[in-house]
């Protein structure tokens, strides 16, 4: 694995992780569990 591979793998993994986090929050919000961040509750 070259340096390029490593850098890209880390960046892509980070992006996918954040995407999955947002998907989880999407599901939570749809069922009224997640009331969003930084908003008036």
């Amino acid at each position, binding site marked *: 694995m070259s340096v*390029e591979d490593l850098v*890209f793998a880390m960046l*892509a993994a980070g992006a996918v992780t954040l*995407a999955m986090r947002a998907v989880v929050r*999407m599901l939570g919000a*749809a069922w009224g569990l997640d009331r*969003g961040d*930084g908003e008036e509750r």
Partner: protein
Amino acid sequence: MNSAALGQVLVFASLVLTAVVAGLAIVGAVRGDGRQVRAAGFGMRALAWLGAASSLVLLHAIITHDFSIQYVAHYSDSTLPLLYLITTFWGGEKGALAFWVLSLSVLGGVLAWTRRKDPSSYTGWLLATTALALLFFDILMVFASNPFETFLASGGPADGSGLNPLLQNPLMAVHPPPQLLGFIAYTIPFAYAMAAMASGKLDGSWVVDARRWSLFAWVMLTAGLVVGELWSYLELGWGGYWGWDPVENAALLPWLTGTAMLHTFSVEYRTGLLRRWNVFLAFLTFFLTIFATFLTRSQLIQSLHSFTGSVLTPFFLWYQVVLIVAAAGLILYRWKDLKPAGRIESFLSREALVVAAVLLLLMAVFVVVWGTLLPKFSESPAVLAVVDQALAAIASLTGQVHVPLTGAVNVGPEWFNKAVGPIGIAVLALTALGPVFALRQAPGDVARGTAWRTLAVGAGLAVVIAAALVLARGAGLSTASGMPFAAACSLYLRSLSWAGVYGLLAVTFAMQVLGVASLDWVRSVRARRSAKGESVRAAAGVLFRENPRRYGGHLVHIGVALTFLGYAGAAGKLVKKDAVLAPLEETTLGGRALRFLGTKDRWEPAGGYAALEAFFLVYPKGRPIDAVVVDSVRAALPDASSVEGGEPPFVTVRFASESAAQGFLVTTSARATLAPSLALSGVDRGRREVRLVPRRPEVLRVLPESFKRLAQAANGVVESAGKDRMTLRVGGRGDPTMTVAATDDSAFDALLAGWQAGDESPILAARAVGNQPTVVEVVPAGAGLLMSPEVRHYLKSENPTTEVEIEPGLLSDLYLAATPAQGAGEVNLTAMDHPMMSSLWLGAVIALLAGAALIAPVRRRRETVRKDEPGVAAVTRPAGPPGSGGRHER
């Protein structure tokens, strides 16, 4: 998992998630359920990250040369430098589509984030529209034009086909992203308009929300267009920057409506007028970005941007139909609710001028669409017959003779310049007038206001400038021809071509725009200075921060006016010269002389191309050579018996004997024309022979005919040696060697000296003088400006590219492009004196910077603005837009 499979998974996941987001947003918006809208917002943010992930995978595949992926194999190769590998991302259709999906996902994510505190129906429809727009491109990417598609039978070729050489230019690397981003960002204002109409939130707040997005899109699109112009100017070698090519036209269309939209937004924001215009323009601008993409990607129109046949055409066609039906339906449904908050009361109010400018811009859109599509449509005999009848009717009305059309109509740049030019000039005139008149002005207000004074000063300035231009040209003509001054002025005016008239008008109105905008700035800064004692810089800064729309708008207008000066220069005063030149021949351009010195080959291993450079010396016509330059030749030639300035750019050198003169001639020619390209591979002192081989055999691989040029150059050296003193033998087929044999030792030594002389000599070229065997004329380096346009031949492409050389100047650019000609050592030179180019680029930079500064968040405005505050006196302040709850800047 390999890159291709990972990429496929990610784009498919995006597709599914986009559909889910669209569904959630629609359900949430219809039900008015904040939970679903909020969920759709999170989904949008997830899409942004997924888009980033799949783009990273594609970029990685390109950078690591994964040729198992078709897209990578077709648009890159292993020799491309990093910059062009990154360019490959958007260099082909599939990649451009991936870029579209990435950008729209990220913009959608940002949009969702900015709306995170408002899970209303309005936000629901906003996200739904954005997600549906994204869904279309997702579907295209997954099913029709997938960038991660691999080769079915094999693991792909060993190396890729490389990137189109025209795109291998730093400007081309920069051009597509802002251009595409500009297109893509217009989705958001459109989504806001649709959301406002679908949710019924028609209080004008959508205009406030969408304003910054539309500014962002405008700045990006403008940057894309300007960089495209710059690329065209520097790379294409035809001497212009805008050729009315279908793709350029396509990109211009949303820019025209987007520019109109910025102004109608501003009017609605402050007066509640033009509401129907705003939803219409938001739709039209977005529609035109899709139409432009359709035009570019389909093979409907043959174009400079000749992409290969695309499978996307039917998709785009249907998408456009759906868009028109949906938008038209919604606008009609809300037609009554979109009633403006009043009516325009005076033709001399700013809103009336904005409407006039919008109508003109729409007219320009129509003209450009007409001119772009007409060649295609008139291929059909039925359309041709209709056009022919219309032209015949016009001809009979105007009393002209009608020549029946025989084949498809072809409209060129001149047609566009003629048709769009006056519209542009009229818009420019309105640009000068607009800021002078206040919003919501009643007819009586105009007479009382300061508008007339500003206008009078501006108009006076414009008339003075126009008169000065005419008088200056008249004076020039009068001194050149000896005719009386008045007659010369009148002759100049009568001889103006249509382009000249346009140019004159454009300069006049551009000056007026500059005058009005600068005057307002200067007056306001002075008022602040006297009222508050601030420095000029501080006062200007406060003005910009306090009222960015007005003062930033002025800056953008100043930029646009400067750009128009550039266009006007090209329309009115461009001087172009085409010439075929043999070595040491001269041509003239305006007051300059251009002397062709010769060509040289160069091999660029990093770029994978061979370049043929043509060298020109540029100097003022008729001015004698500087004594310093003559002295430098004298110092370099201690053996010469006399050195004196001759006909520029030559310096005449006398030698004591004929053989000394000839020896010098042989050495100089060998050093200047042979040594850079040919190496000594063998020296036989006994037979007085040298064997020469090309220094860079790679050049011959790309450009086999360059050997012929070298042989011609060698022949020139042999002839310069004098009668029978040297002979040249050129190797046969497949043998790239030359042998030069001398008959006496002095000629042989002179030849060898050419390789020993090195590069330090101040002499660029030398020639014999016909009947004076002891005299040689030399071209010294300091006699002028050395310019070297070139032609590049790439290993992996059959089409050579021209690299022009430009000597930029404040008032005009000298532009040279050269290609090899048929005759021995000859080149075709295209030389141009491009006036006011610096103004064009400077204006673009000012407009872009000012536009970008307007996007940046500004400090909240104070809720009340005192009427007597300096800098706001000329504008009557209306109440804030209905329902916007205050006038703060967003």
